C-alpha cells in the first residue's frame, strides 16, 4: 500500500518534560517521526512543552508549538492549524493520554482529526487493564491471577482471593507511578490507596505476585497489511519485581530456547492483532516461570517506548521512523532498510553481539530515600554497551555509567562487608546489586547460592563468576611473575576489563597498561551494527569496540580515503547517561554541533553511550561510536579516526572531565582551551582573576582539609555556601548557617570531590540570581540571553524558574551584566559557549561562577530567541567568526519566555520537596506569552502544577518572609481567594487587615491544613521553610500536596510569580503561537546590525 494521499497535515504530540519514566527517548522517537513525515511531504505540526528537545527545533516541523500539553491548549493549536490527523503513539504515555483526552472530549471529532497508528478503542484496549486481560485470554494466552478494585474497601476484599505478596498496578499512569508490591495487609492498604489516587480513572489491579519470574520484552511492529515483525527481544537480568526501566537488561534474550522464544513471538503477534494496533510499534512484556516455563503476559504499550528506543539502538532498526511511515500508509515491505539499502524493512534484525543496558540512579541526591528498587521506576537515565560477549558488554556498561566504577571492579573490599549485609543486598533489589553479586562470589558463595538469593538467573551469575575467575587469574599471574602474558592481557580485554581496572589489579598506571597493550598489539577493533549479522553489506556507520581480529572502522576508513580523499573530521563527545544535572540539554547541544559542522562540510563523529538520545541516532552524525565516555574508549576512537578537532564543551561535565587527559595525549581539542576551562573552574585561580578584573564576587575561599574549611568559613562569616569543585548539578552543595552543621557535612563533601578542593563562598541572602548565556569567538562576544531567576540565589540554577528577557532588572544592572560577560569571555579567551551566573543585590552585581561550556539553559535560550546557540558556537569553534552570523538582539524580544523545572519528588517517598543549592529537577518546560504573568502561568501548566483561578490558599511562611507576605496575600484576596494561614502567619496578615482563617499545622487541632487538603479544600499552598528544625513540621503537608497534585510554592518569589500568573490567567485569554511565527516577527523588526564589540 503506498502513502496515503488524503492526509496533508499531521500533528505530532511530544512527551513533555523529562521525568523519571519518560526521558529523552521520546525526543529521539519524535524527531525521527518529524523527519520521516516531512521527508514524505507532509506538513508537520509539533507540540511539546519541553524546549530542550531536538524535536522542537523549528526546522523539524512546519509549525512548532512549545505549549502546555493539555486538552485545552491542544484545542487552541488544532483550531489554529486544522491538522487532518494526529499521531499519538510517539510521545510516550503523555502523548497517548493526551490524544485519548482529545478524543474523549470530542475535540478530535469537532475538528475532523483522525488518529493514526492506534485509534482510541485500540489504545483503551491495550491500556485498560481489564480490557487488556480479556484480550489476552481471548487469544489463548495466560495472565497472572488478578482482580480490579476502585476503592479501598473493594481492594481489601479482592486481595483475599489473590493472597500476599501481591502487586498493585494503577490503570492509566506513567512509568508505574503509584504502583507497588504489598507483602501484608498494612502495606497493601497504603499502596492501594496511593494507586487509586494516582490512576486517571481511579482503578487499580491487584495481581498474583510473579515476583522472581524471568522478565522479557518483545518489540513488535505491524503494518496496515497486517505484516508483523519482531524487532528485538530483551531479557531483564533483574527478575520480575523490579521495573524494567530500573533493571539491567540484555538484548537479545539469552536464556530462551528457540521453542520458548517462538512461543513468545507467536503470542506477541496474536496479541498485537487482537488489540488491533493498526500500524507502528508496540512493546509487550512477558514473564516466564524459571522452573516450569509457564509464560504469562504482563502488559503492552501500544506505542513506541523507552524499550523501543533501546531496541532501535541495540539493533540499528529505526522503529520510530518506520512507525511514522507505516502510520501514513506504507507497508513494511515498501520501506527500505537504510542500513543494507537493498533489503526491505520487513524482516527481523539479527545481531552478532550482546547489548547490555544499565540504569543510572541518583539516590545520592535524595539521601532520605532508600535505594531499594521495586515496580515503580526510580532511575533517571541509562547507558547501553555493546560487546561481543555479555561479560564485555556488562563491564563496558559499568564504565559508561560513570558511577566511579572501572567496570565490575572492587570498589569495596569484600572482606570488610558483613555476610548478612551481602545477603540482604542480594535479596532486596537495589541500585548497586550487580556489585554485590560479585562480592558474594568473592566471599565464597556458590553461583547457585547467589542465584537463589537474588533470584537472578544462574546464567547471569555464572557470567559474573567468569569475570571474577579471570580477575583472580590475572592477580595470580601478577603475584607470581609481575607482568601479564600477552594472551592473558588479550583475554582480559576481550572480557571487558578496562585499562583502569587492569591498572588497579596490577598496581600500575592506566597509562602504562595502555602503553603495554599497544606495544603488544592488543588494540580495540570496531565492529558495525548492521541489523543482519554481516549477511548483507551495510552502509550505516554505527560502530562499537571489541577485541577481535578485524577492524571494520579502519577498513571502511581506508576505503573511504581511497575513494573520496581526506576530509576534515570533528569528533563530538556526548554526555553519557542522563542524570540529574546532566540531561537532554547537553545532548541537544551535541546534536546541534554535529548538524552545524556537517553543514560546514566537516565529517562529524559522535561518541556517546546513552541509548535514549538523538545523538546516538545513526542519522545524526557521519559516524557514530556507541562507547562509554572514558579516556580509554575515547582514545580508541581517536586512534582510528584521527580527528582534526574534538569538541568537549557540549556534553556537560562528562567530556570536560576528560579534557585535560585527552589534551595531554595529544588530542586536538577545539574551542575554549583546556587551560581556560581550568582557569574558570579552579576556584583559586578564578578568584584571583575576578579580583584582577575588579569585578565583585562573594567573599570566598578554597580549602582542602576540614580545619582549613572551618577556619575559612569562620573568617568569611556565615551563612556560607560549601561545595566541592568539579561537580555538576550542585552535588553535595549546601548552604550552611553555622559551624556545627558545617562539621557534620564535611565528610560527605570530601567523599564527593575525591581530592579536589572544597569551595566556600559567602552566601548572599535575598539576592537576585541571573544566568547569562553567551558565545565568543576569541575576539567578539555575543550575549545571547539574560535570564532572571524567579527564586532567589541559593536555589540551584537548574531548579529555579527563570524568565527571559529579565523583567525586574534595571537597565543599568543589565548593562553591568553585559559588560562583565564580555570582559570575562575575553579574558578567558572563550571560543564557543559561555555561561555565567550572577547574583544581584541592590545595584551590585556579583559573579557567582563562569562555565566556559554549553549550559543547561542553552536550548531554552535558543528556543526563546531563535538563535541556535550550539550551532553557532560549534561553527565558531571550527573557525567561523561571530561576524559571519547575522544575530538578533535578544534584549528586544516582544514576548516573554519562562523556564520552569520539573521535579521528581513524587518518585521518592520520604523526600522533602524543598529546593536548595543541590539540583534535584529532572526536566524543564517553557511558557511563552506576550507578558510575564501569562508566560509564568503557562509554564506552571506545562509543569503539571496549574495554578488555581478560584478557591482557597494556605499560607505559612518563615520569619524572614513575614515582612513581605502581606502583599502576596492581599493580591490573592483581591482575586477572590479564601485564605488560610498558620497562627504566626495569620497574625501578620490580620495586622495588615487581611481576612484569614487560622488553620493549624498538620498535626494540631481539628481544622488542620492536612485535613483541609485531603478534603480538596485547599487549591494552592504557599509554604516557605525556615531553619532545618521546623522544616520537618511542614514536610507531611508538602508530601500530601504532591500526592493530591496541589501546587506547593516554597519561595516567596515563587509566590509572587504565581500571583502574577493567576491574575493573568483570570484576566487574559491564553493564546498559542508557533515558534516559526514568533521568530518571523522578531526577524522582521529586531534583526540588528552587529556591533563592533559584538556584545549585542
Amino acid at each position, binding site marked *: 500500500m503506498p502513502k496515503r494521499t488524503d492526509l496533508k497535515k499531521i500533528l505530532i504530540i511530544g512527551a513533555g518534560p523529562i521525568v523519571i519514566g519518560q526521558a529523552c527517548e521520546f525526543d529521539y522517537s519524535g524527531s525521527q517521526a518529524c523527519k520521516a513525515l516531512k521527508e514524505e511531504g507532509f506538513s508537520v505540526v509539533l507540540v511539546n512543552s519541553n524546549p530542550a528537545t531536538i524535536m522542537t527545533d523549528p526546522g523539524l516541523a512546519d509549525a512548532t508549538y512549545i505549549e502546555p500539553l493539555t486538552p485545552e491548549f491542544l484545542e487552541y493549536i488544532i483550531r489554529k492549524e486544522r491538522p487532518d490527523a494526529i499521531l499519538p503513539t510517539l510521545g510516550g504515555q503523555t502523548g497517548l493520554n493526551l490524544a485519548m483526552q482529545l478524543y474523549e472530549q470530542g475535540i478530535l471529532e469537532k475538528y475532523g482529526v483522525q488518529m493514526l497508528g492506534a485509534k482510541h478503542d485500540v489504545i483503551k484496549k491495550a491500556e485498560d487493564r481489564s480490557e487488556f486481560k480479556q484480550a489476552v485470554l481471548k487469544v489463548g494466552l495466560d495472565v497472572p491471577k488478578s482482580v480490579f478494585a476502585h476503592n479501598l474497601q473493594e481492594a481489601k476484599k479482592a486481595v483475599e482471593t489473590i493472597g500476599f505478596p501481591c502487586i498493585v498496578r494503577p490503570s492509566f499512569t506513567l512509568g508505574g507511578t503509584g504502583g507497588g508490591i504489598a507483602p501484608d495487609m498494612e502495606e497493601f492498604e497504603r499502596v492501594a490507596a496511593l494507586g487509586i489516587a494516582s490512576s486517571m480513572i481511579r482503578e487499580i489491579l491487584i495481581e498474583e505476585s510473579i515476583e522472581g519470574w524471568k522478565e522479557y520484552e518483545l518489540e513488535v511492529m505491524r503494518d496496515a497489511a497486517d505484516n508483523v515483525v519482531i524487532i528485538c527481544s530483551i531479557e531483564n537480568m533483574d527478575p520480575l519485581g523490579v521495573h524494567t526501566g530500573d533493571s539491567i537488561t540484555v538484548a537479545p534474550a539469552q536464556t530462551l*530456547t528457540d521453542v520458548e522464544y517462538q512461543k513468545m*513471538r507467536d503470542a506477541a503477534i496474536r496479541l498485537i492483532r487482537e488489540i488491533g494496533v493498526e500500524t507502528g510499534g508496540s512493546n509487550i512484556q512477558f514473564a516466564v516461570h524459571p522452573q*516450569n516455563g509457564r509464560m504469562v503476559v504482563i502488559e503492552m504499550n501500544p506505542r513506541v517506548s523507552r524499550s523501543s528506543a533501546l531496541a532501535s539502538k541495540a539493533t540499528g532498526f529505526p522503529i520510530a521512523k518506520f512507525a511514522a511511515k507505516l502510520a501514513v500508509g506504507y507497508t513494511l515491505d515498501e520501506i527500505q532498510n537504510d542500513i543494507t539499502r537493498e533489503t526491505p524493512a520487513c524482516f527481523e534484525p539479527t545481531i*552478532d553481539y550482546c547489548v547490555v543496558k544499565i540504569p543510572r540512579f541518583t539516590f545520592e541526591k535524595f539521601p532520605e530515600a532508600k535505594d531499594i528498587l521495586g515496580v515503580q521506576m526510580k532511575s533517571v537515565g541509562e547507558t547501553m554497551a555493546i560487546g561481543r*560477549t555479555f561479560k564485555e558488554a556488562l563491564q563496558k556498561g559499568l564504565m559508561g555509567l560513570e558511577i566511579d566504577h572501572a567496570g565490575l571492579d572492587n570498589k569495596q573490599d569484600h572482606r570488610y562487608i558483613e555476610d548478612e549485609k551481602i545477603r540482604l543486598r542480594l535479596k532486596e533489589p537495589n541500585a548497586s546489586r550487580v556489585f554485590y553479586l560479585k562480592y558474594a562470589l568473592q566471599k565464597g558463595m556458590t553461583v547457585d547460592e547467589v542465584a537463589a538469593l537474588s533470584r537472578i538467573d544462574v546464567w547471569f551469575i555464572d557470567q559474573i563468576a567468569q569475570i571474577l575467575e579471570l580477575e583472580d587469574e590475572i592477580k595470580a599471574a601478577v603475584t607470581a611473575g609481575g607482568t601479564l602474558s600477552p594472551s592473558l592481557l588479550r583475554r582480559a580485554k576481550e572480557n571487558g576489563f578496562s585499562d583502569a581496572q587492569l591498572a588497579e589489579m596490577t598496581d600500575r598506571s592506566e597509562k602504562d597498561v595502555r602503553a603495554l597493550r599497544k606495544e603488544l598489539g592488543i588494540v580495540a577493533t570496531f565492529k558495525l551494527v548492521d541489523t543482519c*549479522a554481516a549477511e548483507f553489506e551495510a552502509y550505516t556507520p554505527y560502530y562499537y569496540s571489541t577485541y577481535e*581480529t578485524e577492524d571494520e572502522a579502519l577498513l571502511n576508513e581506508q576505503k573511504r580515503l581511497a575513494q573520496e580523499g581526506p576530509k576534515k573530521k570533528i569528533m563530538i563527545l556526548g554526555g553519557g547517561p542522563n542524570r540529574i544535572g546532566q540531561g537532554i540539554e547537553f545532548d541537544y547541544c551535541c546534536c546541534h554541533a554535529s548538524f552545524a559542522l556537517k553543514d560546514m562540510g566537516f565529517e562529524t563523529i559522535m561518541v556517546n553511550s546513552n541509548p535514549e538520545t538523538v545523538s546516538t541516532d545513526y542519522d545524526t552524525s557521519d559516524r557514530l561510536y556507541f562507547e562509554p565516555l572514558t579516556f580509554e574508549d575515547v582514545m580508541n576512537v581517536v586512534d582510528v579516526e584521527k580527528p582534526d578537532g574534538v569538541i568537549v564543551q557540549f556534553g556537560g561535565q562528562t567530556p570536560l572531565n576528560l579534557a585535560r587527559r585527552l589534551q595531554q595525549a595529544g588530542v586536538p581539542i577545539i574551542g575554549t582551551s583546556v587551560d581556560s576551562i581550568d582557569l574558570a573552574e579552579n576556584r583559586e585561580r578564578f578568584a584571583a582573576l575576578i579580583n584582577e578584573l575588579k569585578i565583585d564576587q562573594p567573599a570566598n575561599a578554597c580549602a582542602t582539609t576540614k580545619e582549613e574549611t572551618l577556619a575559612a568559613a569562620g573568617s568569611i562569616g556565615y551563612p556560607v555556601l560549601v561545595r566541592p569543585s568539579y561537580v555538576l548539578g550542585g552535588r553535595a552543595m549546601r548552604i550552611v548557617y553555622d559551624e556545627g552543621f558545617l562539621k557534620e557535612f564535611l565528610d560527605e563533601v570530601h567523599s564527593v570531590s575525591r581530592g579536589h578542593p572544597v569551595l566556600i563562598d559567602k552566601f548572599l541572602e535575598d539576592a537576585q540570581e541571573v544566568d547569562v548565556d553567551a558565545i565568543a569567538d576569541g575576539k567578539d562576544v555575543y550575549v545571547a540571553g539574560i535570564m532572571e531567576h524567579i527564586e532567589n540565589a541559593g536555589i540551584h540554577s537548574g531548579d529555579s524558574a527563570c524568565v527571559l528577557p529579565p523583567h525586574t532588572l534595571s537597565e543599568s544592572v543589565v548593562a553591568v551584566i553585559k559588560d562583565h560577560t564580555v570582559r570575562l569571555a575575553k579574558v578567558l579567551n572563550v571560543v564557543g559557549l559561555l555561561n555565567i551566573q550572577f547574583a544581584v543585590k541592590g545595584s551590585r552585581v556579583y559573579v557567582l561562577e563562569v562555565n566556559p561550556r554549553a549550559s543547561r539553559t542553552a536550548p531554552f535560550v535558543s528556543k526563546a530567541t531563535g538563535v541556535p546557540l550550539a550551532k553557532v558556537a560549534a561553527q565558531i569553534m571550527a573557525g567561523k567568526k561571530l561576524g559571519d552570523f547575522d544575530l538578533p538582539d535578544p534584549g528586544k524580544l516582544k514576548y516573554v519566555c519562562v523556564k520552569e523545572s520539573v521535579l521528581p519528588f513524587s518518585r521518592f517517598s520520604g523526600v522533602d520537596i524543598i529546593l536548595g543549592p543541590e539540583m534535584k529537577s529532572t526536566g524543564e518546560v517553557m511558557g511563552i506569552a506576550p507578558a510575564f504573568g501569562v508566560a509564568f502561568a503557562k509554564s506552571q501548566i506545562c509543569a503539571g502544577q496549574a495554578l488555581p483561578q478560584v478557591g482557597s490558599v494556605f499560607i505559612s511562611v518563615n520569619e524572614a518572609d513575614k515582612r513581605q507576605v502581606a502583599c502576596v496575600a492581599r493580591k490573592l484576596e483581591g482575586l477572590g481567594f479564601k485564605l488560610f494561614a498558620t497562627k504566626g502567619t495569620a497574625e501578620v496578615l490580620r495586622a495588615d487587615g487581611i481576612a484569614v482563617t487560622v488553620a493549624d499545622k498538620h498535626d494540631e487541632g481539628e481544622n488542620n491544613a492536612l485535613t483541609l487538603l485531603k478534603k480538596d479544600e485547599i487549591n494552592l499552598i504557599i509554604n516557605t521553610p525556615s531553619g532545618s528544625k521546623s522544616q520537618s513540621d511542614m514536610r507531611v503537608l508538602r508530601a500530601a500536596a504532591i500526592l493530591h497534585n496541589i501546587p506547593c510554592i516554597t519561595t516567596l518569589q515563587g509566590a509572587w510569580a504565581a500571583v502574577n500568573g493567576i491574575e493573568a490567567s483570570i484576566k487574559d485569554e491564553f493564546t498559542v503561537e508557533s515558534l516559526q511565527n514568533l521568530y518571523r516577527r522578531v526577524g522582521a523588526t529586531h534583526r540588528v546590525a552587529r556591533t563592533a564589540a559584538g556584545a549585542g
Partner: protein
Amino acid sequence: MSPEYMKEAILYLQDGAAFRGHVLGQTGETAGEAVFNTAMTGYQEILTDPSYTGQIVVMTYPLIGNTGVNNDDVESDKIHVKGFVAKEFCRRPSNWRATKSLTEYLNKNKIMAMEGVDTRALTRHLRVAGAMKAIISTQDFDPKSLQAKLDALPSMEGADLVREVTTPKKYVWKAKGPRRYKIAAIDCGIKWNILRIFADLGCETHVFPATATIKDILAIKPDGLFLSNGPGDPAVVTHVIDTVKQSIGKLPVFGICLGNQILGLALGAKTYKLKFGHHGANHPVKDLEGQRIGITSQNHGFCVDTKSLDPAQAEVIHTNLNDHTSEGLRHKKFPVFSIQYHPEASPGPHDARYLFKQFIDTIDANKTHA
C-alpha cells in the same frame, strides 16, 4: 575455562584465509563446507538438522549454548554438522528443560566445536568470497598441508549426501489422535518437526527411503506425497527426481527445501548454487498468492533457477524479499507445490506454518475431485 584445557585450533578456508580459536573438547581434524547461520536461537535444532550434513556451521550470534540441550528439541537422532564454530560457548547453561550443557553434548558426540573465533570477520569473508570448503584442525597448522587436504575433499556441488542421511528402511510416524490422512514422505534427511506437524494435523506419515520407487509409494495408497528437506546438491539425487516426475498427476505433492529443488528439477527447471546460501531465521518471504509476508526459517545453499522454469507448467508462488530468489513453486495443472524455506521452522518463526494446512486442503480437494 583456563587455557590448559583449551586446545588451540585453526579454521582454514579453501581460499587460504585462516581463523584461530580453540576447541572445546574434541580434537583432531574435520572438514566440510563452511556456512554461516544468522539465527540467534535454536542451535540444538541446527546441529541435528540432517540438511547440514557435510557442513561446518558458523553461528553469527556470539553466545551459543546458553540454554544447554534437552531431550526434545532435536530434528533427528544425531548431530549432523561436521563442525561447529562460535565466538563463545556457554559453560553453565540455564533453562528449565536443559538436561546437559552444549559442550558435554558436543563432546559426547565427538563433534569438533571451535570457539574464540572472530565469527563476524569469518562471516564477512564467507559473504564476500562465498561458502567454501574449510577444515578445522588442532594438529596441523601448516597452510600447505591443510590446503592439500581441502583440495582432496569433494565439492558440495555434485555431492549426493542424501544417501548418507536417508532412512535405511521405511517407518511410520503416527498421527496424534485418529488418523485422518496417510502421507508418504520421501526422506532425503527429513526434520522431525515436519513429522510432528503432520501428526498434529491428523496425518500418519510413512517415511520412505530415498531409494523408494513410485510403485512402493503408491502401494500404501497415500493421500499425498511429501518431499523432504535434505543436504547436498539436488541435481544429483536423480532417483528421487524420477520418482517425483512419475508422481505428478497421481498424488498431491508438497515439498520443502531440497524437496522444492527436486520438484523444480522434476519439472524440467535447473538449480544453481547460491553464493553463501540462506541460513537463518529472519528471511522475509512474500506469498505471491496470498499477498502475505512471512518471516521464515531458511537453510539452503541451492536454488531453483526461475528462468529455467517452464511458465506453461509451473509458476513461482513465493519469493524472497531480500534477494528476490524463488522460494516456492506450484504446478499449473496438478495439486503439486513446494516451498524452498522451512515452514516447519524449528528453529525459527512459525509464520509459514499455514502451508501445511494448505497441503491438507489440497489433499481434501483432491479427494473430493476423486
